[in-house]
């Protein structure tokens, strides 16, 4: 008995091909837009995470506190701050070496050699935050600790950028939900037209004793088929388009900061999501339309 609605669903699509195609096109256009937003949002999310994870606070210790007992107290105080994930110590010799190593030119490196015995660097702590949006707060807490000479982090501009990215991500999420609802509305209206033309059939089905669910099931299957058909082109374009973009750009957009998410397996998950949205849109759209004609007042 399960095969009946499936068989009738497919023959319904075949019989009302023009209507089915126009419904599927509505789904296709909406899914293409949804796909773009998901790709954009996910890459922004990934990019933001990368920035967040690379953001760390450097804490310079006052020259007067440079002994292991005092520095141990400073480290413990930093670790006690809420939101601190990891604290790494680096002494002034290591800091000097990092500084020299940052130059590519050998002559410049040699020019700094004489300062080795009169090292101007500070002992330092590098602090990682559990989340990027806590950086400012943690930095100001560290500043209050006795023996801390200077606190540096990416700066307010980096934090603002992370906040902006988070906002973009949220807006992207809302747009995806909004567009899905729009797709349901579009498919509902198109299917409503096909069902409206068949309301006499529904009356006849009722006359011979068919229950609402018996009448409804082929229409719902028809809606799902339309949803699946409508998602084929967006899936193909998304997989091909994103993979090509990734290959052509070498996975980097504009600068090294903007790294694209690798297509495999991400793009296949996205294909699954698009197919899922197509099925849900077809299911809900047809259900809402057919229910309109199944409401019975007497």
């Amino acid at each position, binding site marked *: *008995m399960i095969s*009946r609605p499936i068989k009738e669903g497919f*023959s319904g699509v075949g*019989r009302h091909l023009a209507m089915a195609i126009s419904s599927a096109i509505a789904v296709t256009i909406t899914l293409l837009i949804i796909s773009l937003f998901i790709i954009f949002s996910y890459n922004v999310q990934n990019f933001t995470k990368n920035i967040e994870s690379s953001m760390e606070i450097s804490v310079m210790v006052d020259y007067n506190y440079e002994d292991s007992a005092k520095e141990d107290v400073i480290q413990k105080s930093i670790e006690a701050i809420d939101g601190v994930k990891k604290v790494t110590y680096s002494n002034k010799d290591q800091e000097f070496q990092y500084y020299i190593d940052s130059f590519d030119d050998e002559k410049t490196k040699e020019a700094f050699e004489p300062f080795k015995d009169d090292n101007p660097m500070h002992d330092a702590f590098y602090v990682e935050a559990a989340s990027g949006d806590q950086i400012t707060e943690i930095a100001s807490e560290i500043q209050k600790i006795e023996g801390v000479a200077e606190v540096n982090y990416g700066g307010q501009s980096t934090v603002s950028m992370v906040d902006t990215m988070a906002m973009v991500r949220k807006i992207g999420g809302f747009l995806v939900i909004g567009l899905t609802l729009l797709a349901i509305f579009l498919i509902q209206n198109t299917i409503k037209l096909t069902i409206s033309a068949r309301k*006499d*059939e529904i*009356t*006849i*089905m*009722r*006359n*011979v*004793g*068919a*229950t*609402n669910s*018996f009448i409804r099931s082929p229409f719902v299957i028809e809606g799902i088929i339309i949803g699946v058909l409508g998602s084929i082109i967006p899936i193909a374009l998304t997989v091909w388009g994103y993979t090509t973009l990734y290959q052509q750009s070498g996975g980097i957009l504009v600068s090294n900061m903007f790294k694209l998410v690798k297509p495999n397996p991400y793009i296949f998950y996205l294909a699954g999501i698009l197919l899922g949205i197509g099925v849900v849109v077809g299911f809900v759209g047809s259900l809402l339309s057919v229910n309109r004609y199944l409401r*019975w007042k*007497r």
Partner: protein
Amino acid sequence: MIECEHVYKQYKNGTNALYDVNFSVKQGEFVYIIGPTGSGKSTLIKLLDGEELPTKGNVEVVGINVGELKRKQVPIYRRNIGVVFQDFRLLPTKTVYENIAYALEVINMKKPQIKKRVDEVLDVVSLKEKKTSFPHELSGGQQQRIAIARAIANRPKVLIADEPTGNLDPGKSDQIMNLLERINKRYGTTILMVTHDLTLVNKHRKRTVVLEHGHIVADLAQGGYVRHDQ
């Protein structure tokens, strides 16, 4: 088999379609309901097949009080009665076989049984060769015979025919009447036929209930009817 006791029907717009209607039909009876346009014939059919509820009174068919049925129960109730309409009401996108089979699929009959039953009723209406045809490929008379085949496919105890010959010429109407009489005799199906075709009523004489202005004005056990204005 059919009981109407003090049945009243008033529509929301205030129209009194039926007024104190009383009649009963025994099992195996063949009864005509006749009357002019607006006499309440269609409303009576709607009450009998559960599409409308009586404003007052009892409508009982095959032991079921139709007025007390919940909306969800109406499709199940309809499986106990067969209804034939003037406009045939065949599913245009289904073949003859599929149209009849649909009425059996809704009662979850198994496929081999459906096939057997469809063949049987197509034999009764003498249209076995039209099994794979679509409704638009058939004449009006043939479409009505298919509609009758569908109505009797699940062997209902009651068959309600609403102007079944209304769209047919006299020759075809006669064929339909012969078919209904055959079904009445062969299966003992109770038949209630609404018509305004007095030629048929007088030719194929049966008990005749006359409705006028929503009220029963005559119940003629021997049948035959001549209008006062004729």
